[in-house]
C-alpha cells in the first residue's frame, strides 16, 4: 500500500473540516475522491502534502508516518501535489517553472531528460519555453502546473481539480495525459468535480460529504450507484 489515511481530522481554527476520514491507495492505482464544494477534498490533499497540519489520525506513506513532516520533506519522499487553480509562477519562464518542480533534485542530466519527457506529454509548451508563465492561456497553465509537479518524479501524483474551468477540448487533453501516466505505472490520486470523467479513468473512488467518507468502491460500482448518479453524475 503506497498511501494509507486513517481517521484523519483537520481543523481550520475551531472549525472542523475533516471528521475522521480513512482511505487508501495501492501502488499503481488511480484513485479518485469526488464530492461537492466544501466537502473537504482539497483539505484532504493539502494535509497529505504537509501543507496543513492534521489533528487526530494517521497518514502513512510507504509504511511510515508523514503526519509531522514538513512539505518539502514529503516531496523528497516522492509525493507531489498539483494544487487547485494552477498557481504557476507567473514571472518565471515556462522552462524555469518546470525546473522549479525539480528544485530538490541534483541530477542535472536527468532533470534535462525529464523536461523533454514532460514536453512530450504537453507538446503545446514546447514553443513557449522562454515565455513568462503568466502569459500562457488557462489550459496551458494547467498543463504547466501538472508538468511542474511531474518534475520531482513522484511515486504518488496528487491532482487537485485539474480540469477546473477548462474548455472540453482541453479537459480531454488533460485526461489523456492522466491516462498515459497511469499506463506508465504512476500512482495517481485525483480530486475532481467532474465526477463522470474521474470515474471513467479511476480504478476506485471515494465519495466525501461534509468531511466524511460516505461511500467507496470500484469505479464501475460507483458509476452505477443511484445515489452517486443523482448527486454527482446529473441523474
Amino acid at each position, binding site marked *: 500500500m503506497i498511501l494509507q489515511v486513517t481517521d484523519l481530522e483537520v481543523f481550520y481554527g475551531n472549525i472542523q473540516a475533516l471528521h475522521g476520514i480513512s482511505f487508501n491507495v495501492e501502488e499503481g492505482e488511480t484513485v479518485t475522491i469526488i464530492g461537492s464544494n466544501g466537502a473537504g477534498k482539497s483539505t484532504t490533499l493539502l494535509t497529505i502534502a504537509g501543507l496543513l497540519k492534521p489533528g487526530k489520525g494517521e497518514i502513512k506513506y510507504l509504511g511510515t508516518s508523514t503526519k509531522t513532516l514538513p512539505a518539502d520533506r514529503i516531496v523528497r519522499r516522492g509525493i507531489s*501535489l498539483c494544487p487547485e487553480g494552477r*498557481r*504557476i*509562477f507567473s514571472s518565471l519562464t515556462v522552462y524555469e517553472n518546470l525546473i*522549479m518542480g525539480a*528544485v530538490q533534485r541534483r541530477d542535472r542530466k536527468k532533470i534535462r531528460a525529464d523536461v523533454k519527457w514532460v514536453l512530450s506529454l504537453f507538446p503545446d509548451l514546447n514553443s513557449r519555453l522562454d515565455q513568462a508563465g503568466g502569459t500562457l492561456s488557462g489550459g496551458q497553465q494547467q498543463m504547466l*502546473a501538472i508538468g511542474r509537479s511531474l518534475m520531482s518524479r513522484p511515486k504518488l501524483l496528487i491532482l487537485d481539480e485539474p480540469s477546473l474551468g477548462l474548455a472540453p477540448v482541453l479537459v480531454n487533453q488533460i485526461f489523456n495525459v492522466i491516462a498515459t501516466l497511469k499506463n506508465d505505472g504512476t500512482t495517481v490520486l485525483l480530486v475532481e468535480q467532474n465526477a463522470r470523467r474521474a470515474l471513467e479513468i479511476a480504478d476506485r473512488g471515494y465519495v466525501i460529504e461534509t468531511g466524511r467518507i460516505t461511500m467507496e468502491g470500484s469505479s464501475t460500482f460507483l458509476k452505477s450507484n443511484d445515489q452517486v448518479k443523482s448527486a454527482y453524475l446529473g441523474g
Partner: protein
Amino acid sequence: MHSGRQAGYTFMALGLFFLGIYLLSAYGNHYYQRVGNLMMIYVILTVSLNLSSGIMGISSLGQIGFMAIGAYVAAILTLPPGLKERWLTGLPHWMHSIQTGLLPAMLLAGLLAAVVAFLVGIVILRLQGVFAAVATLGFLIIVKVIAENWMTVTRGGRGLSALPAYTNLWWTSTAAVVTIYAVWRILKSPHGRSMIAVREHDLAAQSVGINAPKIRLLAFVISAFFTGIAGALWANLIGVVSPGSFYLWLTLLIIIMMVVGGMGSVTGSVISAVGFTILLELLRGFENKIAMYGISYIIFAVVFLLMIIFRPEGIMGDREFSWRNVRRIIPLP
C-alpha cells in the same frame, strides 16, 4: 551574444566606473565626494532592501534597524580608545583598548546585523503582508529605544561622535559593487528562483518542495548583512551616530527608491538610488536659493506619487539590464 564578450563589456564598464571614482577622489571637491559616498550607500541600502522586499516579498519596514545595528557596531569598534573608556563604561574592559580599521568594522557590523536578522526573522517571518510590516516596524522602534537608553554602550541620545573618517569613495563604491554582484548572483541562482516562486505562490512553492520559511529567512539575513555594512560605512562617513538618524525618514527613503526603481529589479534599484540622490541634492540647492525650506521633500513626494500613479511597476518593473538590450540601441563592437 557570446558570454565572454558580455563579461568583457562588464569589465570595461567596471573599469570606467572605477576610473570615475579615481577622478572624483583625486580631483573632486569635498561636496561631490560626499554626495558620491551617500549615493553608493543608498545603492547598497536599496539593492539589499530589494532582495528581501522586492524579490522575496517580505513587507519590511524595519530594514533601517539593521543599518542602525551596523552603524553602532562600527562606531563602537572604531571609536578612539580614550573616548571609549570615558563613554562606554558598559563595554567589557578588553574592548576599551581595541580600535579596528574600517574593514573589520564593516564585516562585524554586517555579521551582527545578520545574526540579529536571523533571530528576529525566525519569529517575524511567520507573519505575512501587513502583519509582517507592523512587526518589522516594531523591530525598528525597539532598536531605536535600545539605542536611546543603553547609555553605557550607545551613549543614548547624545550619540557617538568623533568617529574616524575612514569611509571614502573606494570603500563605498567597492561595497556597492560587491552588493550588486552578490544580489544579482542570488537572483539568477536556484535560490533566487525559489524566492520568486515563494513570493508569487507560497503554497505552490511549498508543494514543489521549496522550504519556504528557510528561503525567506535566507533572503532576510543576507539583506540585513549588506544593510549592516551600509550602516558601518555611514557611521565612518558622517562621523556621528545617534538614534534619530536611523528612523522613519531613511526607512521611507529607501522604500521609495526601491519602489520607483522597480520591485524585484536590481538594475532599477541602482538607477533609482543614483537618480534620487542627485534629485535630492539639486532640490536642496534650489531650496536654499529660493529660501523655501522643506519644499524639496514636497517635490520628492510628488515625484513618488506621480510614479505610483503613472508607472506603478517602477522604472524597470522586474526586468534587468543586459548587454543584449544595450546592443539593440547602441551598436557595440
